[in-house]
């Protein structure tokens, strides 16, 4: 028997597609097609901006964020995460607008030359509502959808495998790079580097870490390129997908309906009917 074919023998048993691939989510909302969930998130975010004001985004938050979150059973995590996400912006928005709102007249508080106005507060609340809608919608999407699922779905619909690769690899590279930075930090600290202290010292301390992380990652690009080419990635044409998230006519209709609603909303805004 030719030795070369020894590397090429087929499996004796037929085990089929493993069931841990594309395992469906715990709730009906989880099991929706990723593109549907993405459309909902994007439409909600844009609508929050278009509608403006305070009541509009608040209604959106209740209907398009809290509602589905309850259905999916992720309300608790959603609240925690989207608050975390919105916190820096919320703080900025509040501080900046409460105190520095031009044209504010109803004075609430006075600290030296800095004045807090009621108009500023109202404006800040509006911005807050908008931000909650946007961060809520996106966090809901993140909590109910694995990023790889979205990319696989897009690839099934015709996106180039190369774009899919870049998207997936980016998602994995971020935590990998952070871990690498942590390792380098630990190593530097073991060598007596000062990582606590004043802001200036900490900024100076970042440089010997950022450098090796960036350069190390770039150096690896060469090896990764070779490994990917050795596995036929550069072959032109489509590649086989092992599985893809399910979709339905109803969901497709719903997606188009959402987009149409958004378009109508934008038209209404332009015409001055809303916001």
């Amino acid at each position, binding site marked *: 028997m030719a030795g070369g074919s020894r590397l090429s023998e087929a499996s004796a048993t037929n085990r089929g597609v493993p069931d841990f691939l594309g395992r469906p989510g715990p709730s009906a909302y989880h099991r929706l097609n990723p593109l549907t969930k993405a459309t909902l*998130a994007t439409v909600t975010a844009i609508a929050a901006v278009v509608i403006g004001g305070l009541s509009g985004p608040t209604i959106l938050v209740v209907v398009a964020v809290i509602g589905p979150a309850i259905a999916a059973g992720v309300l608790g995590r959603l609240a925690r995460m989207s608050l975390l996400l919105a916190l820096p912006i919320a703080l*900025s928005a509040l501080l900046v607008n409460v*105190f520095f709102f031009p044209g504010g007249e109803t004075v609430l508080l006075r600290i030296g030359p800095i004045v807090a106005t009621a108009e500023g507060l109202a404006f800040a609340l509006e911005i807050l509502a908008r931000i909650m809608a946007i961060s809520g919608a996106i966090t809901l999407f*993140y909590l109910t959808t694995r990023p790889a699922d979205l990319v696989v779905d897009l690839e099934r619909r015709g996106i180039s495998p190369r774009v899919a*690769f*870049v998207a997936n690899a980016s998602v994995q590279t971020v935590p990998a790079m952070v871990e690498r930075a942590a390792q380098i930090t630990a190593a530097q600290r073991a060598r007596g580097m000062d990582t606590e202290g004043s802001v200036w010292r900490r900024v100076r301390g970042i440089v010997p870490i950022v450098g090796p992380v960036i350069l190390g990652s*770039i150096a690896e*690009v*060469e090896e990764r390129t070779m490994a990917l080419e050795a596995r036929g990635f550069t072959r032109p044409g489509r590649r086989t997908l092992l599985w893809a998230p399910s979709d339905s006519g109803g969901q497709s209709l719903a997606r188009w309906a959402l987009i149409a609603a958004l378009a109508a909303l934008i038209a209404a805004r332009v015409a001055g009917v809303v916001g």
Partner: protein
Amino acid sequence: MVVRWIATVVAFLIVAFIGIVGFNFEGQAAGNSWALAAALALVVAFGVYAGIEYAQTGGFASISSQFDMRTLALMPVAIAINIILGAAVANALKIPIYLDSIGTILVGALAGPIPGALTGFVANLIWQYIIPPPFQGAVAAPFAIVAAVIGLMAGLFARAGWLRPRPDRPIGELAVGGLVALAVVAGLAWYAYARFYGTTFEFFNPDNTNVVFTILGWLIALLFIGFIVGMLALLFVRRDLTVAYVTIGGVLTGAVAALVSAPISANLFSGVTGAGTDFLVAAFRQAGSDIQTATFQQGLLSDPVDKLVTFFVVYLVLSAMARRTKARFPQGDRLLEGGDSPADGEGEWRGAPA
């Protein structure tokens, strides 16, 4: 080929025209949005170019040749750098710069304008939609087009050889370089002042009692002086003429980025994005500008500084990379110092198959 380019330019002009002249919301806003309109027109023009190439040749060869496997393997690294540094600066350091374009400009330099533009674009989308907290960016996606423009410009500058090291130049050359860079920056600063700042308030006006103005005024002056001193010091200490090129490239990219991002920030977020720049916007609004102008004023301060720093960081990273590592990238040869490689195909030596 010619048909493709003519159609692209026509498409660009049409969309730009519609964007700038056609959409007349409020006169001032439309006028200030010309850069954004131009950027959108660029995107449409790119789509037209790709569409026509597809119709003509059934493929995207001229575009995809800039995307070899090495570039594809670099992009996730670049995107990760953008996201990690950008999130760190936005969440931890409340300073009015972004530092979220290092990866974009790196890819632009090594692989070309289109890969650079795509890196920036995709990075911003992924940052908002796919990256989990704590790194997730809440306002990144709408600025994807700004990132695309940044990558495009960086790629074009690199293609023109601006990032090629030019060490050990005589003092005369360095002086000329320094002067040109200064002239460009000063010219831009003057134009910006006249167009965007002068109408709102005057600096150093002794009658001015508002603390905010005074502080701002001095801050800006200090920034400017610090920048000049720093740039000149770098130029003459390192004796590398490319410092001048990097300076000009950074400031120009920053200016364009500011012009494209200001309308987005103003219209979508009312100038509040959670970054350290919000206070600047507020300060300008306090000084009397409307939201549109205030975002421009903030942007024209933060962006050139941010992009200048970023360009220098990228230049440093590039100089730390081995020569042969750079050479293997599509545009790598524009980043190497002089010197020719030995001739190809002499005798029986053959390169890779086409």
